[in-house]
């Protein structure tokens, strides 16, 4: 669950502390890449993404009036798909445009013997919610998730 960050090769994800819960942050060269990494960060709150095989794909569509609400919608759509399909995800593709998100999450059915699951995510929240472009041109997508 350690940070998968390397200084030279963005995109990356990381966790940051929140007193009761967990902050998830994705960094990439575009908002879409940052969204993909934020999804990976959220997955890592639940389980080790490197142990999840990207065998099956699930399509996700969201719409929201701005990028920040769209990030929360995207993460919450993943929470819903995991809960109702009994799946875990480890690879994500996102396309953004005009308040719409089209995404694909790849993963597999939960296998208790291979997937230790620490905690479930109840929902992504608006706390510490930011989708911003940094001075170096990279994008950050982050929020706190309620566990």
């Amino acid at each position: 669950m350690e940070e998968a960050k390397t200084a030279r090769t963005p995109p990356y994800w990381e966790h940051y502390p929140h007193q009761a819960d967990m902050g998830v942050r994705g960094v990439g060269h575009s908002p879409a890449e940052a969204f993909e990494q934020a999804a990976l960060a959220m997955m890592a709150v639940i389980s080790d993404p490197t142990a999840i095989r990207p065998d099956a794909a699930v399509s996700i569509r969201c719409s929201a009036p701005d990028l920040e609400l769209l990030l929360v919608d995207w993460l919450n759509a993943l929470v819903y798909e995991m809960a109702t399909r009994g799946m875990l995800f480890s690879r994500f593709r996102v396309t953004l445009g005009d308040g719409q998100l089209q995404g694909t999450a790849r993963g597999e059915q939960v296998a208790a013997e291979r997937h230790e699951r620490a905690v479930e995510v109840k929902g992504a929240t608006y706390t510490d919610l930011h989708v911003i472009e940094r001075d170096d041109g990279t994008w950050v997508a982050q929020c706190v998730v309620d566990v």
Partner: protein
Amino acid sequence: MDTGKLIRHSEYEWHIEPHGAMRVPGVIYAREDLIRAMDDKVYEQVCNVATLPGIVNASYAMPDAHWGYGFPIGGVAAFDPKAGGVISAGGVGFDISCGVRTLHTGLTLEEFQPLRERLAENLFERIPAGVGSTGRIRLSGREMDAMLRGGARWAVEQGFGEEADLERTEEHGCMAGAAPEHVSDHAKRRQRDEMGTLGSGNHYLEVQRVTHVHDARAASAFGLREGDIQVSIHCGSRGLGHQIGTEFLKAMAVSAGQYGIALPDRELACAPIDSPLGQRYLGAMRAGINCALANRQIITRLTREVFAELFPGKHLSLLYDVSHNTCKVENHLVDGAKRRLFVHRKGATRALGPGHPALPEGLRAIGQPVLIGGTMGTASYILVGTAESEQLAYSSACHGAGRAMSRHQATRQWRGREVVDELAGRGILIRSPSLRGVAEEAPGAYKDVTAVVEAADKAGLARLVARLEPLITIKG
């Protein structure tokens, strides 16, 4: 939090004078050391809640307050619909009606000890706990709606309990005004496999021993004696409540401008109580309360089955079931006048004093049991509501220890196996599907629950009755 920003009214009551857009003051009930340990965000969130339309008296924080979502966890605020008051999905939280119920086992330590390992194994095997765990019950669409309308009463009618359980559950087990039609198909779908499950995070089922009685009269009225073995269940409305929270938070955030509400923080998303959106949320949230009550009732049935197999002839009777993430319509005296208010308690326990008409007959003379969950390694407490609490914070008290450290920090400091072994050495059996989950919930990651309940007691929010220490913890 810097206490320099607060005005000390007493050792356990500190005020924030209204400033900026605050309509009312902030009031924090805690001792100075607890306040100093609180995140600065608690100050900010108490102030933000005080800016919401129709708030009455003050924005309150309980002794276990910590950084939450919009509202602090440990936050209490009441709103008057006649003054343009609002209802807030963030003010209730994602885990609608998360709460605690405590049962008497009638066992002595001598009866318990020889079977403790088997009891731990059987409880762990039978009570679904942890991420993605599923229950035995699958509800059809019609059954789901009946459950959302009926709560624990529905569960008892289905054979998951007895009439006497309802008497000892808030709202007599059934929250009136639930509107399953305002609960989305997504929320119902998410709940399909989750009836009768504990969940994860800080949720648990514990077998506990009463180690100290602080108030003999109240303890006697609650049926508690030193050495008694109790079971406490801490969980909520599972996926259904989480999904209702998620969906209404967005709907309220998007429409706040339309209602002329300026939000200092999007997470404070709310709608006027009398608006169509506010009313829809109210109906859905009440359905979520019923889901939590039914869920704890079903887990009670599973627990009784396990105990009946190991201890034939012993019956688990319910002491009380109380929720700590709710919005309830209550009448309160404000400046001598009775007002009908929508009281939000986010991580705060209702604590009705003696004589309150909502209390069952057997408890009315003494007051409501206030069930405070601790950590795996410390203690839980039972308090009783006081008469003075109504004027302090609408009859509310703390709900738990409150985290002192993030999950991130906790996993760096402890390993799950070490926590399990250390507690086993002290006679506490931990069973959990996740060692990482155990590390995140390590007792050291929480505040001192004893300091929290003492602050609640000294502030007058509720009075200490008994201390309980864990013997077995089934951790989600």
